[in-house]
């Protein structure tokens, strides 16, 4: 793995984010920075990555670990290039979320929580993503795919089979540089 270090552009964003909070309260930047680190360093938070974020904020590594392990969007293990997150809470369940999960699982030959052998896809079931009126739905990166049918799911999988990049929630341009 390459060295864990943000490029200049990302470092400028880090400084800009830290300025959003009063002096001495830079720890507030932890969640945004973990998101950025996860997006830039292969889609998950390794211990060296978390230690690096701790150093940027001048906080103890344990303060990062305890936060990273609390929030469900932070991956503490490697995930596939394409992380498929299927909502399955009530409204989505009412409109067929279980069938969508089964369909994807059968197509990829994996169960929820697993990654395909080629490292391409990870299937994850998640709780309510606030897309109940367009259920069933799934999320890949920052995109919501709604009113799902088996056909729609199939074409998404085809589309991602041909991509080389990681699915990401954000990039360096998501946050405004204040």
């Amino acid at each position: 793995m390459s060295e864990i270090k943000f490029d200049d552009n990302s470092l400028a964003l880090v400084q800009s984010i830290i300025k959003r909070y009063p002096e001495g309260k830079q720890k507030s930047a932890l969640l945004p920075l973990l998101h950025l680190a996860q997006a830039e360093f292969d889609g998950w938070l390794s211990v060296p990555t978390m230690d690096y974020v701790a150093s940027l904020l001048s906080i103890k590594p344990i303060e990062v670990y305890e936060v990273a392990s609390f929030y469900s969007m932070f991956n503490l293990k490697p995930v596939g290039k394409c992380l498929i997150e299927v909502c399955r809470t009530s409204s989505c369940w009412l409109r067929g979320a279980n069938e969508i999960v089964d369909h994807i699982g059968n197509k990829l030959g994996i169960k929820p929580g697993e990654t395909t052998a080629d490292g391409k896809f990870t299937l994850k079931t998640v709780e309510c993503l606030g897309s109940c009126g367009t259920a069933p739905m799934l999320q890949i990166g920052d995109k919501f795919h709604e009113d799902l049918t088996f056909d729609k799911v199939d074409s998404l999988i085809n589309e991602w089979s041909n991509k080389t990049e990681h699915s990401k929630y954000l990039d360096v341009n998501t946050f405004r540089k204040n």
Partner: protein
Amino acid sequence: MSKKILLEHINVPGIETLEVYRSKGGYSSVEKALKTMTQDAIVEEVKKSGLRGRGGAGFPTGMKWSFLAKPEGVARYLVCNADESEPGTFKDRYLMEKIPHLLIEGMITSSYALGANTSYIYVRGEYFYIIKILEKAIDDAYKAGLLGKNILGTDYSLDLYVQAGAGAYICGEETALLESLEGKRGNPRIKPPFPAIAGLFACPTIVNNVETLAAVPSIVNNGGEWYTGIGIGRSTGTKLISASGHINKPGVYEIEMGITVEDFIYSDEYCGGIKNGKKLKAVVAGGSSVPILPADLILTTANGEKRLMSYESLADGGFASGTMLGSGGFIVMDETTSIVENLYTFARFYHHESCGQCSPCREGTAWMEKILHKIKDGHGTLADVDLLWEIQSKIEGNTICPLGDAAAWPVASAIRHFRNEFEEYVKNPSTINKVKHYHNMHNLATA
């Protein structure tokens, strides 16, 4: 047509841009507030309006604002709760996506009223595409002199920032949200002190929901008195309802409070009736936390009156026969729905989302999920149903934050109103597969 305040211009092409938003009168409340009104006068108007918190608790907004401590030389903060995570609720997302400047206008006017010079919008991390939209809108507002130093040439200055959450329902609880905004785990704080005294960075802080803040511009523009003329009784104004489940027209609807539940479900202006011509079985009217009601009780109160879409009418009868307006997450279930299976999804949700701080919630939500898993798969006993009841009653009221209650109420209400269905699962497990979501297969394959 019902009165529209928040969504009046929602279908205007380009309303997400500053230019079009302003052409429709957008940001006039900032102009009016900063140039012609004192801070206290705005708080008074909001008090007069009867506006109540739209995130779920329904606490009077003006009263909450009046609790804000104002010690000399100490910063105050306004934090917008955009952590919308209550299952069945997607109205804030809709509002921020379609008309982001309405929230920003509400933030500026409200921040001025509270004397805050830095404010934050805490958005759930799963909504990163919304964060992009908000950041663009904030950027444009800065460029137009609506944010930053000396707004519109006045001596009032405000910086507004978006903060991303990272997947935690609990951060919708205001003190957990503040912990998260300080870069910590989302563990709720013990109250008191309330955030109005010691909130963000231990400074006086007001936390308001997106929809609440979005209602402020219209109140400032037209006066609190005007707002009380809309709605019914103490349920003043309009409410966004997120409608989902087995209905013909799922979506976000702005209703004037006081329309009948029946009208909301069956009229073409709103949900358009039950999908595939099926019959209504049950409704969760205010997000997953509120008690589920069977068709007869959601349409009519125990006294035989038509149930209305308002805080008071939905709560009529207490938990014995009523429910709550909550966040307005309105989940409709048709006659084929398994109440047990649906409840299992709720129980799994609350187990997943418990922060783990209080043992009744941490342990109780896990037990409830396990027992429901057992019952739904046909391995339950009648004693399990009683045990479920027992566990939920031990969680309710025994935790630091309301997540415990939120986890207990769906279980209690499902057993209260649908006990026979739980017993059926226990006594005749072979019939269970017949009621499992078979109705979805056809739609998913051919739609």
